[in-house]
């Protein structure tokens, strides 16, 4: 398993945080995700055989938020 901190831009409140945690949290290979509104990042524990920092960041972008593979 591997842990990464991704930059996330565009969230304004707790419900933004929740929708990201819910949707990204159910992706294959995602063990745990913690999103911080204040720090504008997402800390993800994941299985490298299913995900990478890039694929996770892309999934967040796909939801309409801006994300970079490093925070």
């Amino acid at each position, binding site marked *: 398993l591997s842990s990464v901190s991704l930059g996330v831009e*565009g969230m304004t409140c707790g419900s933004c945080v929740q929708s990201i945690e819910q949707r990204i949290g159910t992706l294959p290979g995602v063990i745990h995700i913690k999103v911080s509104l204040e720090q504008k990042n997402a800390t993800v524990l994941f299985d490298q055989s299913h995900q990478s920092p890039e694929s996770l960041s892309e999934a967040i972008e796909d939801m309409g938020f801006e994300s970079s593979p490093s925070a």
Partner: protein
Amino acid sequence: MTKHEFEVAMTCEGCSGAVTRILNKLGDVKFEIDLPNKLVWIESDKDVDFLTETLKKCGKDVKYNGTK
């Protein structure tokens, strides 16, 4: 072009911003967002199922209200 009305369970500017970015990525669509009323109007020739799935990417519930 057909103008479609969708109800998207947006609650804040983060949601409407996300919907804006998602629709902008599609390229050839014109759209309008009414955040207080949770409505999104899209002018597009793409089919409703595709547009619904696209809107759902933001993680919110989406309902199709018909053409306007």
